[in-house]
């Protein structure tokens, strides 16, 4: 998926202003810059617009271009005459309308009680569940844990069943390990007003 986003993201800045946010690992900025350099681009066209999120994650700005979502760059901000802060605020406003119940589909693990929710929308709006912890808790019937193991993939469940917790944590790890664009194997919990690391399945 990163290849698609990188390729599309390297297109010229546009005046389109349908914005979103995705979670990314910190190395995405350098990766994008390197890919841009290989494609003969540099400067604002090669710089993503990302801001620190929590743990090792960034919130990176995306923009809709036709039916596709691309990374927004500093060149886009210049065209839109927006600061990074203003653009991220505008993106949060557009994510506010995302219906988490419709976005996060109910899933079950074969042979196990309990359920989890999963989204693989890859529409540049992965961050929506992370910005609505209250709504997410209401949807899940209690404080949930959340993982963003790969681009577009969000896994949410209500922890407490040890067997299900283990299976899902391992599942998150597998998605991360096998993804073409991995984000984080860590699982996060909303705790005292911030996302903190709840756990992570590690390789034996």
């Amino acid at each position, binding site marked *: 998926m990163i290849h698609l986003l990188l390729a599309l993201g390297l297109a010229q800045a546009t005046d389109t202003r349908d914005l979103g946010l995705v979670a990314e690992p910190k190395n995405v900025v350098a990766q994008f810059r390197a890919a841009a350099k290989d494609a003969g681009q540099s400067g604002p066209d090669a710089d993503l617009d990302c801001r620190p999120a929590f743990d090792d994650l960034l919130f990176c700005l995306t923009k809709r271009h036709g039916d596709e979502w691309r990374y927004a760059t500093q060149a886009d901000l210049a065209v839109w005459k927006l600061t990074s802060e203003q653009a*991220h605020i505008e993106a949060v*406003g557009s994510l506010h309308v995302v219906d988490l119940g419709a976005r996060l589909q109910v899933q079950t693990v074969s042979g196990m009680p309990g359920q989890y929710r999963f989204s693989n929308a890859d529409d540049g709006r992965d961050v929506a569940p992370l910005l609505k912890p209250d709504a997410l808790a209401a949807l899940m019937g209690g404080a949930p844990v959340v993982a963003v193991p790969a681009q577009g993939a969000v896994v949410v469940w209500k922890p407490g069943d040890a067997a299900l917790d283990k299976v899902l944590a391992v599942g998150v790890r597998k998605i991360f390990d096998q993804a073409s664009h991995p984000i984080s194997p860590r699982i996060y919990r909303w705790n005292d007003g911030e996302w903190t690391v709840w756990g992570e399945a590690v390789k034996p």
Partner: protein
Amino acid sequence: MELNLTLEQVIAFLLETPLFEDLDSAELGEVVRVMQIQRVRPEQAIFKEGDMGGAWFVIFDGEADVVKRDPFAPKRTVATLGPHACFGEMAVLDDSPRSASVVAQTEVTLFRFPSGPFQELLEESNLAAYKLIHAMARTLCVRQRQINQQLTDLIQENETDALGLRSRVGPILDASSISE
């Protein structure tokens, strides 16, 4: 204690806070510029009854009690506030002393809007600040109507009690006055 809260999370939270419902995300960005984040320990007073008001607040996380002085008790909790609740705006609107104390029940994270910078936004004719003042006025109207209704109920209750007392006590008084 440091809180890792991003601008994105602050804006997303305020978009779901009733007092801010008339503001779009860009307008929220303008008022957030004057906002501070404050962490309060359990049982710590956010402000005390009689203090001069220098800010208004929104609870981001945790719970706080609104406490009034009571001549017949050490204190009286009149309400408990949770996330998205706004308080302290009365003192900012009319520069009057705080009408009640607000005390953290749990660890509380607050968004604090200091009066000075907020007044400056109003003086700059900032639309977002005016929308907030309008929302505060609306909130105070709702509270005033609730207080009026409670007063009316209390008066009716007292009148009913007084009538009942008179109907029970009246004949005895009459009888005793006759026997005298």
